[in-house]
């Protein structure tokens, strides 16, 4: 699941990119390429288009590392935001180019953009939720433990495991409840 980077890593990465260090860009790609590609694919639903947006996103970051402000939150969510913006732009452009569109088609496109930004918010929430909640969700969902096994594995009571699973999902469900896209602000945000 989400693979967070500590603030110090984010700051150093930004400095290295700003200095024009190509090796840093490779490291950044290894860390975030699948996030960028997944989010793009969710909007564009096309492998080639997602590849192209991935190229655009890293190109934008490489040319504009200063537009990231570490005070605004983790680099990961900044990158998710850039991806959302570029992928949505790409989707709208593709549709404009394919000729006049009906209001229904237009609404379909916007719906896709909204669903994708919900997914981006969800990603941010999972990334920034307390590690104890994330670990409980990972064990039950991805490793298919039941909550008692999860409790034992985490060394907590059954009650506590139930609480963490419920709270984790409650936080996550807030991703779906507000629809304006752009900058996500999740419960883990410190500002």
């Amino acid at each position, binding site marked *: 699941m989400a693979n967070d980077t500590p603030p110090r890593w984010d700051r150093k990465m930004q400095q290295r990119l700003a200095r024009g260090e190509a090796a840093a860009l490779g490291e950044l790609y290894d860390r975030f390429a699948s996030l960028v590609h997944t989010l793009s694919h969710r909007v564009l639903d096309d492998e080639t288009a997602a590849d192209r947006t991935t190229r655009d996103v890293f190109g934008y970051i490489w040319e504009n590392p200063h537009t990231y402000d570490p005070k605004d939150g983790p680099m990961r969510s900044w990158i998710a935001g850039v991806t959302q913006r570029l992928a949505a732009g790409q989707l709208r452009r593709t549709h404009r180019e394919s000729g006049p569109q009906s209001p229904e088609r237009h609404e379909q496109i916007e719906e896709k953009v909204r669903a994708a930004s919900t997914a981006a918010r*969800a990603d941010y929430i999972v990334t920034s939720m307390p590690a104890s909640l994330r670990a409980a969700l990972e064990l039950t969902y991805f490793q298919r433990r039941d909550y008692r096994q999860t409790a034992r594995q985490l060394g907590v009571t059954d009650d506590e495991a139930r609480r963490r699973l419920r709270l984790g*999902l*409650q936080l996550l469900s807030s991703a779906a409840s507000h629809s304006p896209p752009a900058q996500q602000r999740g419960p883990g945000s410190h500002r």
Partner: protein
Amino acid sequence: MTGPDGPDGRVPDGPSGGPSDRLPRIPPPRSPADDSALPGLPYEAPEQEPEQYDHRVLKSLLGAWALSACSTGETAAIEGHLSDCGACADEALRLRDAVGLLHPEDSLDLDPTLRSRVLEGCMVRRAPRVPVPEWAAPYDAETSRLDALLRDMADEEWLAPVWLRWFDGRQQAERETTVAGVIAHLLAVDGLVAGALGLPDPLAYDSGGHERGGNGNTDRAAGSGGAPDDGDVLRTAGPAERTEEFWQADCDVLRTSGARKHWREQGHAMVRTASFAGGGVGELDVSYGGFTLPVRDALLDRAFECWVHAEDIAEAIDYPYDTPQGAHMHHMVDLAARLLPGTIARRRRRGLAGPPQRLTTAGTPGRALHLEVEGDGGGDWYIPLDSPAAVVRPDDAVAHVALDGYEFCQLAAGHVPPLEAAAGQDGDREAIRDVLFAAASLSRM
């Protein structure tokens, strides 16, 4: 029913719940992503008392229910309760939808060629002030590919047995380890290049320094790569000795993913140091014990090893793995071709290869073998047979060997016996034999 927090006593057992069918029937939760079995965690029998759950307990179970992580009895009790309790039913729906937002975000398999396309595109948009040297690019790409394979591996897969195979000069050899052990091996041998670049030796942290008794243990943790006699034993040890020592010094390294982070960080530091150091650093010597390679070739050798062992790992966990991109593979084949004359000479000194047919002095022409490697990354090489220092031209070829790029790499990795290398052969048989055996002898653990 009472409000969300009020205790309300018992609920009917099972989903058939009474007259109140006004709420929509909630479908059962979706099943989790991973279907794999759970080693070591026996299935737990459902609780025996299905009627003991009150509203408060049922509510606390909603998260676990949405994730299909309750016992059968609990699941039945919750689903019964949902048709009676509007507040819980609302929450259950919300939580179940939230489960749909959980995605194994980073498990997507990206097209491995996308990385270089993206990075190259970026370099065109803004020229790097500190580029990655061309000779470091294959290592950068191969380590990145292997790391992507490791990223989503389950704990038990780190224990999967892996057979390392090579050709020891006379015959096939093999050594069993684990996926984790392979990464430790890569970390230990990459450390030879790291050391030459002035980076800390990874073995100096982990081996407790017992072979370097008089050298002042306290400094070692700081990784004093520059001290002249520090770690002499390890510096002069070859890849196999270093690996065995590392495996023995830290048993966890064979069982856990612990070495991955160190291997990755060391790799990043190597690429970064090579980038900042500029051209000259590529010519520094890296000692492999019995021989040396300049840093630029050593990094290429490490890229090749990384690919070969990534394939070993992929095979062990039954996962597909691609070949390197053509340009990188060409560099790897070229390195092997350049190392062949010296290897033939060494084998000759050990009585493993036929004597030179022509006595040549440095710079004079000698016999050659035309090595034709086909496919993406291939090319034509003319291998001097009589002396590494001989100058050869296409006209000097006394034999011709043609094989596919992947086959050649398998040969050079020691994965196929030299005489079974499916090669198109033509000309002097002893020359062909010497070259095929020398190619296989390039391999090591």
